[in-house]
């Protein structure tokens, strides 16, 4: 589990598999919140903007975008 934080707020679960991501820019155009940006070299996720809509996962040519396990409401310890 990557985070022990428990929260009621929707948190971005989108993660990039850096082994697969080619920073190819297929995903930023379909992101309706503008959370995905291909900066100088790498794809970046603005976790504040992402609303887990999953459209980017469908467009990714290499399957590099995925949801991590949700950490909400998981009992700790």
């Amino acid at each position, binding site marked *: 589990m990557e985070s022990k934080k428990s929260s009621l707020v929707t948190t971005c679960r989108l993660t990039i598999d850096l082994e697969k991501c*080619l*920073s*190819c*820019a*297929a*995903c*930023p*155009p*379909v*992101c*309706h919140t*503008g959370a995905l*940006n*291909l*900066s*100088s*070299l790498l794809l970046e996720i603005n976790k504040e903007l992402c609303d887990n809509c999953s*459209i980017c996962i*469908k*467009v*990714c*040519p*290499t*399957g590099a975008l995925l949801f991590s396990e949700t950490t909400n409401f998981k009992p700790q310890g």
Partner: protein
Amino acid sequence: MEKTDAVIIGGGPAGSIVASTLAKKGFEIILLEKRPQIGVPVRCGEATGSREEISRFIPIDETWILADINAARLIAPGGRIVEKHLPSVGVVLDRSRFDQALAGQAANSGADVRVHTEAVGLLRGKNCVEGVLARDHRTGKTYELNAKVTIGADGIEGFIGRWAGITRHLKLSAIHSAIQYLIEDDGLPRDTIELYAGRKIAPGGYAWVFPKQKGFANVGLGVDPTMIEENTAKDFLDRFVEQHFPNAKIHATVAGGTSGTKPLKTMVGNGVLLVGEAAHQNNPLSGGGIMNALEGAEEASKVLTEALTTGDVSCRFLEQYDSRWKNRVGHAITKFALLRKLIYRLEDHELDNIAAVLDGISRNGEDKPIDYAEIFKTAVKTAPGLIWKAKNLLW
């Protein structure tokens, strides 16, 4: 604050042509490229128009031409091959070198080309874009770049159009998810491109083989992401290469998205204009965009020259570019966008029927370029069910 006549975002073919054209007229031009190097990485199939067409924009240099295309082979799902002899119809480029040559042409014309520099926001005046906030990734510094006109040539992933309120995000059905390998193999075609159609090969798109220097080719495909369920474009390409080039050595992978939509209603705003794939100027059926970007840049440059000369960069003035583009290429793109919806939804047996008729046409016909309208007519003629599909899609 730094001031200039025009700031162009994106050092691809569209941005470089606008930069060189305006710089030649004596305007102060700054061209921003977020990447450390122009033309790297490549995100392109690299096949494009003829030497003659390209030479209208830059003198031909053999160092960026890897192969000449003299024929096209369409391979139907059932295996029927329709071959068309098309002498000197196009070339396969070394896109990195090509883009570098175009940016070099811009720099030699007097444009200030800045790599490592990303536009991270717009400068907004009263109801008008007045430049960009630029970040130099080497120094980490952000600075304001004030420009009379801002040109978004920042590709499909660009934000200039979205920030300016000209474009929105693309719907999933409006983009092709594409991937390509550079392969080395003994059995590759020379001077002939191959296009493979079929639901099992590339749902909502097609696969291509574009020969490069001897023994090498770009082999790739684009799919409609709404038609592939849990699979990725890569899954389809791996299967395709395994079937057709089982002994190939894969040297590189490139991927990307191309828009498959009709032209934008407008590509301009007050003090801002879009060009190239940022303005969805690529062909929505084939995904090709290099020649369209060059032509779009040419039309944009004409209107921008006048705008900068007269000092009128208003939306109303820049709109001339919209109509110029529509008349030159845009109307054709509208048709291609409709054809995309139709052709890529055909069942494999329907494609086989069309291929059979096309085969007849190509055996009897003269050496004319492939006419998609003709394919459409043939499609409707050979498979009456298609009329219903067409009716539902088009009307």
